């Protein structure tokens, strides 16, 4: 691990502020124009009001509960899609019959904006957790399957030949060579699928209710409390940022050989 010496000093705070100075400037500008009354508060409340609302929502537990619901739906759906998507993707690349069956489906399914199917899912599965989880699973299955398939196809022939030469049989080949060799591509699929899972969950919650950050956000607009909407948006941004960082950190740790 290379540790930048400067990052250990006090100048690190200045440095990190420098890297987001445009953001800080915008936030200051936000507070300024709203305080001066240049924007109707219902459209854009003062930043300080939004922050206050955020603190209130967190301390009453509302925000935590909503975040829990959203993340639970997103990740249960994502987990299902990961298992199915990786399995189908690898089978497509290794088995002619699976390729024949799934390749056309993937071609059509991958570019479909799954979010357009929300009404159909409400019709079929209702507006509860199950409906949302299935929707997330269906929406994230495609990028995971496509990335798993392509990564498996790109496993170098000579790696497989070497393993066979050293006594690895057909069944063990999957665990010993194909999965580890394809794991960077599989991980990329998961990184692409994670924000998609969150988007699907938020939108479904806005449309169908049932709690969660999406429902809390739209309730702010409907209840003439736009500060709540903005506070939830802050939470969503924070969750997105943290998840992205976590996935990157996991990638460097797990795939340090790439």
């Amino acid at each position, binding site marked *: 691990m290379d540790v930048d010496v400067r990052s250990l000093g006090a100048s690190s705070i200045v440095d990190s502020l420098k890297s987001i100075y445009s953001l800080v400037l915008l936030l200051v500008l936000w507070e300024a124009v709203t305080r001066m009354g240049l924007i109707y508060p219902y459209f854009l409340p003062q930043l300080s009001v939004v922050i206050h609302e955020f603190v209130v929502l967190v301390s009453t537990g509302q925000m935590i509960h909503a975040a829990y619901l959203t993340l639970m739906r997103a990740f249960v759906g994502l987990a299902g899609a990961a298992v199915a998507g990786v399995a189908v993707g690898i089978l497509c690349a290794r088995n002619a019959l699976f390729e024949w069956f799934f390749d056309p489906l993937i071609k059509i399914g991958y570019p479909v904006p799954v979010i357009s199917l929300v009404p159909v899912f409400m019709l079929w599965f209702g507006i509860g957790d199950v409906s949302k989880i299935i929707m997330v699973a269906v929406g994230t299955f495609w990028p995971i399957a496509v990335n798993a398939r392509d990564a498996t196809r790109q496993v170098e022939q*000579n790696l497989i030949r*070497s393993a066979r*030469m050293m*006594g690895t049989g057909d069944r063990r080949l999957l665990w010993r060579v194909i999965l*580890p*060799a394809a794991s960077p591509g599989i991980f990329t699929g998961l990184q692409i699928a994670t924000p998609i899972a969150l988007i699907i969950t938020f939108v479904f919650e806005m449309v169908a209710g049932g709690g969660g950050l999406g429902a809390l956000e739209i309730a702010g607009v409907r209840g003439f409390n736009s500060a709540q909407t903005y506070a939830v948006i802050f939470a969503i941004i924070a969750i997105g940022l943290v998840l992205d960082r976590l996935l990157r950190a996991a990638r460097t740790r797990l795939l340090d050989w790439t």
Partner: protein
Amino acid sequence: MDGSIGISNLEKVYGEGTERTKAIDDLSFDIDGGEFVSVVGPSGCGKSTLLYIIAGFLDITDGTVSVDGTPIDGPGTDRGVVFQDYALFPWRTVKENVLYGLEEAGVPDEEADATAQRFIDMMDLSGFENKYPKELSGGMKQRVALARTLAYDPKILLMDEPFGALDQPLRETLQDQLIDIWGDLDKTVVFITHDVEEAVYLSERVMIMTRHPGTKKTVTEVDLDRSGPREDIVTSDEFTRKKNEVWRSLREETKSEVQP
């Protein structure tokens, strides 16, 4: 089990119908156990195809290829392949790569560890046990590949232009290392190369192949005392004579291709 290879009337055809191309035609050649044989030929002569057939990666169209009298049926641990592109497992460290074949053979951990370490030391890789392939130079990667193959103790080493991607000084070092290994470990080696000097320097016999379709053209026996230093070997009369012989034979083949 002495690692002999028998090839008789081998024919290999790729594709079907109008796409049909004969890669190898009526090739017969026997290699003794413990022998070092190089195969040289113009590119596209089917020398790599021949190696992959012996490895069991490719089916044959006609004829027989056998190891110790038994026809080849797919890849197996009696043979080991060293590829030009190394084919190391990038997610495994040097040590873990060398351990792979031993793990597959079910060798107990402690014994496997000792064996792997022995070949790591033999290939001058001590201190690099925990490095990943991406951290190594080409020459080191090829040494890891050699150690990995030697560790599970195949009788036959099949080498597909293994030093082709390395620069000259490194090639020479690895060539000398290979001669030492061959002398110490009693392996049959089939070595594919397009480098005449490399073929003559390393092997007891050099088979020159024709192209389109590939078959045996001539076989040159090289009788060199390889115990001395490199400069003595490459300046000896035998080396020069045999190098010219192989070169002339190969040149005929290349010329005949240019003037159909």
